[in-house]
């Protein structure tokens, strides 16, 4: 759906994103993750044709971006950071306007608007002025707007910012729903959100792409070492000694020992699965294994490690500007 190669963008000499390359496959939900000022909004603005890249090549739905922007824009629905609403219009008028703007033919317009309103739960507020809507409803109008014209690609910039927890869950469900029929890209600085919704994550820091992959994959990529956690019936000392003796295991930590049950975590330096070896070693030592599971690092850990790593790099001293400071 999207091919980006060596993309850079600078605002008046200040680099916002530097030499990014990635591809986005059809029919998945992608999360753009990064701290404030990492260049998330800038990337989205470039993908939607609002800004032109300073260097590099961007292809959206097979169309080269600054050159064939009009064709590419027809395939994209975009919710910017601040929903682009006209407060003096009613929701119905606004959605009609956007549908016409996106070139939806008149006979289908009514039905499309209704469908978008139904999907985002706006049917009740269609005759109301946008000015009088709450923040959550405005956000939904913004999402409904992005759905019009049945775009192949939907780009949502921080779709859940400023919503209450119930609304956040609703919007997340909606995004999951959208992911079935469309390719969705959303940006966020909330990790749990990305973990909950996205099947692929792009982690950005200071304008650079520091990691790409499924949330689970990323753990392995960052730290090839694996960790396993086990609960064993037996004596703490013998258990630890037996596990320590397994080749490749470098660190064993006792978590708790109660009524003969020992829970510990063992880490190894490489990504080889050592559950079998550990289990055999424990049986050999006369212990019964109750539970044995490989553990992945949480996205939180990965994120912090990656963004800190990028921050330490000497060449990325300046802070790239976020889109809103322009």
């Amino acid at each position, binding site marked *: 759906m999207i091919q980006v190669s060596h993309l850079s963008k*600078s*605002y*008046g000499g200040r680099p916002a994103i530097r030499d990014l390359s990635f591809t986005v496959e059809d029919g998945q939900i992608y999360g753009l993750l990064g701290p404030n000022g990492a260049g998330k909004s800038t990337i989205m*603005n470039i993908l*939607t*044709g*609002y*800004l*032109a890249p*300073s260097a590099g090549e961007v292809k959206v739905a097979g169309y080269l971006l600054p050159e064939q922007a*009009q*064709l590419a*824009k*027809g395939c*994209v629905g*975009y919710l*910017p950071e*601040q929903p*682009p*609403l*006209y*407060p*003096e*219009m009613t929701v119905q*008028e606004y959605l009609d*306007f*956007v549908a*016409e*703007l*996106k*070139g939806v033919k008149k006979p289908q317009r009514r039905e499309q608007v209704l469908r978008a309103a139904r999907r985002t739960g706006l049917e009740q507020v269609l005759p109301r002025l946008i000015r009088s809507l709450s923040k959550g409803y405005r956000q939904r109008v913004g999402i409904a*707007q992005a759905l019009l014209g049945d775009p192949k690609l939907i780009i949502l910039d921080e779709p859940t910012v400023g919503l209450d927890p119930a609304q956040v869950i609703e919007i997340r469900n909606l995004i999951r729903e959208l992911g079935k029929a469309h390719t969705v890209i959303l940006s966020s600085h909330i990790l749990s959100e990305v973990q909950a919704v996205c099947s692929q994550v792009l982690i950005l820091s200071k304008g650079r792409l520091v990691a790409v992959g499924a949330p689970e994959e990323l753990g392995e990529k960052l730290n090839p070492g694996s960790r396993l956690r086990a609960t064993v019936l037996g004596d703490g000392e013998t258990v630890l000694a037996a596990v320590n003796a397994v080749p490749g295991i470098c660190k064993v930590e006792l978590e708790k020992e109660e009524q003969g049950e020992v829970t510990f975590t063992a880490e190894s330096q490489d990504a080889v699965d050592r559950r079998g070896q550990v289990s055999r070693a424990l049986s050999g030592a006369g212990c019964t294994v109750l539970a044995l599971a490989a553990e992945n690092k949480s996205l939180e850990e990965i994120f912090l490690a990656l963004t800190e790593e990028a921050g330490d790099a000497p060449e990325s001293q300046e802070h790239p500007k976020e889109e809103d400071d322009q």
Partner: protein
Amino acid sequence: MNAIFKRELRSCFHGMIGYVLTAFMLVSTAIYFVALNLGYGLTDFGYYTLYRTIFMLLLYIPVLTMRSFAEERHSRTDQLLLTSPVPMWGIVLGKYFALCVIFAVPCVVDVAMILVLKVLGATAVSTAANFASLLCYYLMGCAAIAVGVFLSSLTENQIIAAISGVAALLLAYMMPSLRTMFTAGSAVALAVFTAIGAVLSVVAGLRSRSFTLGCLTFAGCCVALTALFLLQSSWLTEAFSAVLSALCLFTPFEDFVNSSFSIPTLVYYLTVAVLFLFFTAQGLEKRRWN
């Protein structure tokens, strides 16, 4: 483009602004119409009403156009327009035509006034002249709207857009009298052209980030101007006055007021409109490239 046109038109009459502006224009025309055309029985609508309300356009047009792009940018709705599959010229023209239609409302009432004069006994010739000057008046207003739209696209502050619009139109309005101050001789022309050359060189230098290029441009300008000044100084003064007269936006209208139909005047107004709409589209496009 259609969607933008309709929305712009509707938004102007959603709030007060469209009604207030139309009322303002109607009242000022009606005062001259009643006092001069009806009061003294004068049939020349162009001179006694339209020509005298030009001054009102200096306020009307900037207030009409100040919102067009500045407001979109301020409320970030430009992101919707610029990411929609509408070409840039569609966005600019959609907005421009909507503003032209709003300006047409008082002009339609002017048509009624001309018809009243006809009913009261104006000759067919003077009625035709009245209609011709109304046509020119409308095109003049449309050209001024293009200038206002351009200024509005430069800023996200409506007030600044309005004030710079008033300033630009006022400058154009006073240009005929300002021009007489500069006819002194080719020395003034040389000074002004040198200043323009200096500004161009600074811009060229900044754009290309090359000090040498800026200096070379300025040196080139200076050499060319000095050569012209020494060899053909009349060209300089002529070119200078031609530039100044092109800036007198409201003067060509006088041709029509004098009951003559002047194609160059109409072409001039259409050119001004096209030129400034082109600038608007280019300016918006450029912002995308930062």
